[in-house]
């Protein structure tokens, strides 16, 4: 079995803060991490590899520094890594991103593509299903568990009300929830080897896609403006003992007709 896992390097958004005076984002010192859902997807692929034997290739699109998440993936147990990096990819929205990734994946052999449900910097959950459409293969999103019965993938998909069990034969694409399985740590041996394995660096000329579909040119959406929300006017804050605090809360709730 050959599995391609799409991963993304993202800023750890839980570490981002807003400057309370200027209302702007403080991005300095925010660490870059492997997107959590993608890490869950890689874990699922590695479990299939452990159980049935598979070759796992990780692919990411990003700046040269995204090499780091590929090394992390290799240290976790991935076999091959591809970095898509080219100025022609810059300014891509989800559709253009999915076209670039699909273009790269077309040049590979695979039975299964795994992606994270969504990335924590954009939260769009779009790139996975869009790749599946470009490659004309079925998709299953919100995957919490993934098994292989020798012929078909057996999938547990989370829904708002519970879950669904679905079956699909390869080739297909899954988007995975981080909560579906706890990702392994990099092994020490894997870390030592990670920089001995090659990371292939591919530009736009290496992939099978119409260049018109890439980057800013290939992006139907544009950011018209971006802004921080600004801070709401703070209410009253009391620093009193517990007894008094409870009194204040109750009188406020009465005043607001909540109780």
């Amino acid at each position, binding site marked *: 079995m050959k599995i391609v896992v799409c991963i993304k390097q993202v800023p750890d958004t839980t570490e981002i803060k807003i400057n309370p005076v200027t209302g702007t984002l403080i991005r300095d010192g925010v660490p870059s991490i492997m997107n959590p859902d993608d890490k869950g997807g890689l874990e699922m692929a590695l479990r299939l590899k452990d159980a049935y034997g598979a070759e796992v290739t990780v692919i990411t699109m990003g700046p040269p520094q995204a090499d*780091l998440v590929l*090394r992390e993936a290799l*240290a976790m147990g991935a076999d091959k890594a591809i970095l898509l990096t080219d100025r022609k990819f810059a300014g891509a929205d989800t559709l253009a991103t999915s076209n670039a990734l699909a273009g790269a994946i077309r040049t590979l052999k695979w039975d299964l593509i795994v992606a994270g449900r969504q990335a924590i910097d954009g939260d769009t959950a779009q790139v996975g299903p869009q790749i599946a459409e470009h490659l004309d293969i079925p998709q299953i999103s919100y995957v919490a568990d993934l098994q292989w019965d020798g012929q078909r993938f057996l999938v547990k998909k989370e829904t708002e009300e519970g879950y669904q069990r679905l079956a699909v034969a390869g080739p297909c694409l899954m988007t995975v929830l981080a909560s579906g399985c706890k990702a392994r*740590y*990099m092994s*020490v*041996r894997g*870390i030592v*080897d990670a920089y001995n394995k090659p990371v292939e660096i591919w530009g736009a000329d290496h992939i099978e896609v119409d260049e018109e579909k890439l980057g800013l040119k290939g992006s139907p959406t544009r950011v018209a403006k971006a802004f921080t929300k600004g801070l709401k006017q703070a209410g009253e804050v009391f620093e009193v003992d517990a007894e008094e605090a409870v009194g204040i809360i109750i009188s406020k709730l009465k005043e607001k007709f909540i109780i």
Partner: protein
Amino acid sequence: MNFDLNKTQALFRQMIREFAEKEVKPLAAEIDEQERFPMETVKKMAELGIFGIPLPVEYGGAGGDNVMYSIAVEELSRVCATTGVVVSAHTSLCLAPIFEHGTEEQKKKYLPKLASGEWLGAFGLTEPNAGTDASAQQTTAVLEGDEWVLNGNKIFITNAGYAHVYVVFAMTDKSKGTKGISAFIVEADTPGFSVGKKELKLGIRGSATAELIFDNCRIPKDNLLGKLGGGFGIAMKTLDGGRVGIASQALGIAQGAMDETVRYTKERKQFGRSLSAFQNTQFQMADLETKVQASRLLVRSAAFKKDAGQPYSADAAMAKLFAAETAMEVTTKAVQFHGGYGYTREYPVERMMRDAKITEIYEGTSEVQRMVIAGKLFK
């Protein structure tokens, strides 16, 4: 000259830091409180290869280096000094001497299982009457046919009872003084070997510290480690490596206490201001931070020299001396900054202060380190 970690070391630090935060830190207070050996953490570390970091791949190791090993002990100790010393005692005091002094047969037999964590390792040198003066060994080993027969007691042995492999020192020829000391490999299931009472300690309370008892303990002749009479040299060389481990542990404890104190003094308000806004806090913390960073450079430099095959005995002693005394100072002041809360178990600095003390004592007291440093200075 380059003071940065290389890419592999940096990736390793990322992993071990995340592991420490997520897997080790949540247990730190509990294992201290219950004086419980963290077996579940040992199993997790074994799976990741943390028990064979600097060992070559051909013996089942990860093929890393001593800088990585030092980072591992530092990052583990930053959240839990007990977990740090489990790895340090195993790696520096058992895996390393077998790798450095063992025969090919011994290496093939012991190293893969030690590196995988299937077997934990320990080291037996100290005796009731042979502490800092390690030459006063009273444990004896006598060759009878194809077996060495060991008799005597070892005390304060880290990982005792949980380790399967012990590197043990015994007198093979009393007339020769230190030249009559030899090193042996003893397995836990050997008849005549037993583990005595467990010590109740001030700090690193989750680590198992106990007595080893040899009562006509018979081991194969081939379990002599290194040359006959070469034991004292092996012990001293092994302790040089052990000091890098304990210096890393001390550094980790100091860093952990710094982290806690920075956070607390930013949060804690007195007289309408954060503690961190007072110049007294700032100046004291600046001094402590400088010492922690100086410790780190000493520790890294000693580990680097060991990897480079350069003499590092005095470097290890300086790293251990300075990092241990820094850990004690930082943790004591951290408790002071935390005030009454710092004295309670609600905050981890109380534990860190108790844990720090041992780093000034084991693997050679601070006084021994000064002897080593002065010995090089005035040779």
